[in-house]
């Protein structure tokens, strides 16, 4: 059996699946049940300063995008940080941590962007026995209007400053949670690092309006005839999150900064992908909110099966394995030639590949074979774009065949040559001469 145990910035957990700071981790009742279901760790729902608790809207706080069969693809929320008193949360954190010493428990924090409030809250958290803190510089609604959350996360100098204060006032590991609502994720990550962060976690939610109510002419979720933008999460945001994780890992300055991967993790495979791109563990929110805590069982069994099958002994041994293969476009091999091949046995003759290629691509699919309905690739036209593969409803029916070195590409009439990229390509005005 593969070893799923995880050590992230010194924090141990039996598996790399943590619940992200959000409603699933808002109270002791939830967190205990999450641990019982098998979650390796949780990041407690973000705590604010002592004093009168935060208030939430009392109308709907979520909007959603659904796929076929009402599968939840994207979720949008306008919830704020915890609306329960600080002392209640702290007491519960202490009690849970005492009973589950083998599980990770990290406390998410968001207080005003001043030194005193940070200095005041850290000893209180330390006293609970929690394993670390996560600084919520990501929340894009409500709190940002008050100068917190993503209002901090969008200014690298603030990130650095607050992180430095926190490191100064606590010995606990510090994870900085980043907002994706910026243009270059490497800047806030580097700022967190300069401030002394032990790790970054990303992504928090993305600014979004999921839909507009066409009777009320107001964004959803609608509160008394009006709506505010919210934060988007769930399966739909995974590609954005994966790229941001990869950017941090590919950047020399931040390559060694540990990353906790968040955003759309729904199955074991999503988690494995984040880990392959350099995440040391993953955090999950929407999948748990959609299916309940038991989804972690599939994540554990799936990751473990995949690791066994691939001979991967530990999670650590796969972290970042895909990073060296994340390249810039200009490094890709322009002499790598493939052609689509339609498996005639598997083909159900729906003709979608033909419509896609004929109408929108390269007119490289015949719609008749020997005078009868049938679909076949015309290699003289196929540019290997892969669109037919992606839109074919039969998995594995259309595949891409790699041309061997020296084989003639019927489209160009040229033989396949060894590796060469744009940087040396004759059409590139800035091409350096090949060595």
């Amino acid at each position, binding site marked *: 059996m593969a070893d799923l145990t995880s050590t992230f910035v010194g924090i141990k957990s039996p598996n790399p699946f943590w619940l992200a700071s959000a409603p699933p981790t808002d109270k002791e009742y939830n967190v205990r049940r999450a641990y019982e279901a098998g979650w390796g760790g949780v990041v407690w729902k973000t705590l604010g300063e002592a004093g009168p608790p935060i208030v939430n809207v009392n109308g709907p706080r979520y909007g959603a995008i659904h796929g076929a069969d009402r599968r939840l693809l994207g979720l949008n929320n306008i919830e704020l940080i915890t609306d329960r008193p600080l002392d209640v949360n702290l007491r519960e954190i202490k009690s849970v941590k005492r009973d589950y010493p083998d599980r990770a428990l990290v406390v998410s924090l968001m207080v005003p962007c001043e030194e005193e409030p940070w200095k005041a809250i850290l000893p209180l958290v330390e006293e609970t026995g929690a394993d670390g803190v996560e600084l919520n510089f990501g929340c894009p609604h409500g709190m940002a209007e008050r100068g917190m959350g993503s209002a901090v996360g969008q200014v690298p100098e603030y990130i650095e400053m607050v992180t430095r204060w926190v490191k100064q006032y606590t010995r606990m590991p510090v994870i900085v949670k980043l907002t994706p609502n910026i243009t270059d994720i490497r800047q806030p990550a580097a700022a967190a690092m300069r401030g002394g962060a032990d790790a970054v976690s990303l992504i928090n939610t993305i600014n979004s309006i999921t839909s507009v109510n066409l009777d009320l002419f107001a964004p959803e979720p609608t509160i008394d005839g009006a709506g505010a933008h919210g934060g988007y999460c769930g399966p739909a945001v995974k590609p954005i999150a994966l790229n941001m994780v990869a950017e941090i890992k590919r950047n020399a300055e931040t390559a060694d900064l540990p990353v906790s991967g968040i955003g759309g993790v729904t*199955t074991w*495979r999503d988690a494995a992908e984040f880990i392959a791109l350099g995440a040391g563990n993953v955090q999950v929110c929407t999948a748990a909110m959609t*299916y309940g805590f*038991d989804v972690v069982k*599939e994540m554990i*069994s*799936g990751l473990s099966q995949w690791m066994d099958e691939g001979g991967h002994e530990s999670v650590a041994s796969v972290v970042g394995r895909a990073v060296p293969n994340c390249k810039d476009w200009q490094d890709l091999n322009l002499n790598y030639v493939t052609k689509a091949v339609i498996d005639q046995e598997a083909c159900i003759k729906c003709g979608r590949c033909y419509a896609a290629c004929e109408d929108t691509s390269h007119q490289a699919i015949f719609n008749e074979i020997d005078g009868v309905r049938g679909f076949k690739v015309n290699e003289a036209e196929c540019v290997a774009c892969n669109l037919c593969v992606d839109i074919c409803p039969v*998995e594995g029916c259309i595949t891409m065949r790699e041309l061997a070195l020296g084989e003639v590409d019927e489209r160009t009439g040229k033989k396949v040559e060894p590796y060469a990229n744009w940087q040396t390509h004759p059409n590139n005005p800035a091409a350096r001469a090949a060595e």
Partner: protein
Amino acid sequence: MPSDPFTPGVVAGRLSADEIAENFQDLHPPLNDHEAHVAADRCYFCFDAPCATACPTTIDIPLFIRQIATGTPEAAARTIFSQNILGGMCARVCPTETLCEEVCVREVAEGKPVIIGQLQRYATDRLMAAGTHPFSRASDTGKTVAVVGAGPAGLAAAHRLAMLGHAVTIFDARPKGGGLNEYGIAAYKATGGFAGAELDWLLGIGGITVEYGKKLGAELALSDLEDRFDAVFLGIGLAGVNALALEGSGPEVVNAVDWIAEMRQSKDKTDIAVGRDVVVIGGGMTAVDAAIQSRLLGAGNVTMAYRRDRAAMAASVMEQNLAASKGVRIVCNAAPKALVASGVLFARTETRDGQLVDTGETFEIAADQVMLAIGQSLAGQPDLALKGRKIAVDEHGRTSRPGVWAGGDCASGGDDLTVTAVAEGRDAAMDIDAALSA
């Protein structure tokens, strides 16, 4: 002249070996990867899922379906086998329409359940095809347990006990193991020698010895087993058949379970004699199986005659429909009176104030072969307290004799189903383990 469906009398070879093979193909052909993904995608991953509660072995169904949906059918199979080691057979024979699929929220809402049974088969087939056994034994406890009966109950008990580190010896009266999986279940539900293959795979856990041709009450005595072993589990099923004395003579009369057992052991079934006009008496699963398989062997006219009304039939609506689709005629309110030269004489019955009464009318149904499927009973009465006509057990499977447990069809409580036998065998094993480790 070779015989055909029109040949009068009870004869073998009404159809060619090829035609029979075609007729006895898998009732539900296995799902391919794509079909399994589409089917799995329909599952809502319900909380406290009704399907799992309805399953007598309480398989975590939403979890295993999600494991299929996420491309790990082997992990799905482990989820299934950890609760039900005969999950492969159950996937084929469980009347899912009255168990998990009946309560699937999509059945309730749309009349189209997630096809749980077929998904279970997809996952279990995948893991079993790899030829490996998913569990390993705990270290040897030094304790020994005798299991009598190698049917679903006995096998489930033996597997669990072996897994927990006990040394198990199974005794069975027959020359082969599997119980009714091997000798009773309809051939089209467990094609390709599945019962035997599953038995071999199950024994792959190790720590289990099997002795065939050893019958309790003949070669074996219960007291003897109690002396030789630390605990005894009885899973002897219902080896007797209920008799029905019909006056007169004419058609040949057989017990449906015996006829089915012989057919199940035949190589290509061309040697199994079946009437041109068959009348099956009974209204349960065995009657349906006998009637359908008679048709599949080429019987011209097959009638299932049941003495009560249709609503009282033990066979599910799905099974009744399956029988009808194979050309079986179902006649209700027909109580057999006597055999006559051309067939069977029936009295018409009616239910009045909950009582079954003869209406006084009679009628005949032509038959050259009559199959009796009116129930099985406990045979060779072991020296144990009974409840009704079965061995009395408590919720842990304990019998009236300390150190002796029982489960499956022979024991009181629960339906006579493969999956129930598995659950009872497994649970008794857990209780035996607790008793032996105390």
